[in-house]
């Protein structure tokens, strides 16, 4: 009897523990979100792997390296040309400004010469008149 009772108690205990319980409300959503997250991570890695795989081929690697080198050299040359053009333009403008300055000084000088020659003429005339009187 006591054995039967023990069995029943054990069975009841197991039934209690193993009874079916409903899942929490958000459980399904959390599972679906986790699955979606894992899928996207795997697909991204797959995409990156496939894009990078292109460079596994030596020809593509060399072609890419050459293209980069050519682009760098061309960029450098273009920058140098732009700098050279800028310096040339500034030099030409500076030379033009210098010529204008020299022209202004030449005109000033020539007019001073004119004043000087007129003064000399007057002085010579006055000296001549004085000599005539004497």
């Amino acid at each position: 009897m006591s054995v039967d009772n023990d069995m029943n108690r054990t069975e009841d205990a197991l039934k209690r523990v193993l009874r079916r319980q409903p899942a929490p409300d958000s459980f399904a959503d959390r599972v679906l979100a986790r699955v979606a997250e894992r899928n996207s991570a795997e697909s991204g890695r797959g995409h990156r792997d496939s894009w990078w795989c292109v460079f596994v081929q030596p020809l593509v690697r060399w072609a890419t390296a050459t293209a980069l080198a050519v682009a760098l050299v061309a960029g450098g040359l273009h920058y140098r040309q732009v700098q050279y053009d800028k310096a040339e333009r500034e030099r030409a403008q500076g030379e033009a400004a210098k010529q204008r300055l020299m022209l202004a000084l030449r005109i000033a000088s020539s007019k001073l010469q004119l004043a000087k020659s007129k003064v000399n003429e007057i002085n010579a005339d006055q000296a001549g008149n004085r000599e005539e009187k004497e």
Partner: protein
Amino acid sequence: MKMKMLWLVLLLASPGLVQAQDIKLPADVEKLSAKAKETVEVTMDGPMLRWASKFLSAEDPEEAKCAKLVANLKGIYVRSFEFDKEGAYSAADVDALRSQLHSPVWSRVVGVRSERDGNNVDVFFKMEDDKMAGIVIIAAEAKELTFVNIVGPLEVDQLADLGGEFGIPKLSPKSLSKAQKGDRR
């Protein structure tokens, strides 16, 4: 009234602007370029002068002297009109220029009126604290009218160097005082 006060304040607050080129070309003179066969117009203020003088070679003696002369200047302004025939400009045009130089800071050191060839030349010095602070040359010739305004501290010997540099006899203070005596009107 407020506007007048504002202009006065601005004028007093910017002596550099007023000093830079205190001689203005009358509008009638500016219009002469339309009649002129050839017009030379040089307007160089301080920064432009500094920049242009950077391109003057120190190895060329002529350019080296010019660089030294220009170093302390505040501006060079030149207007030169060359005409096909005589009488293209009026005496009033020239008088309008001369009338701006009647202030005490300006003294006329050369004033020549030639009846022989009609060439009239005036040279004015601007003196500040017994030092040359500028020069104006007005040369009114039969077929040419030239106005030169050099602004800035200019030593007389530097000016003489300028005169002597381009194959022109040097102007000494003595010869300039003689010129005043020989002024013919």
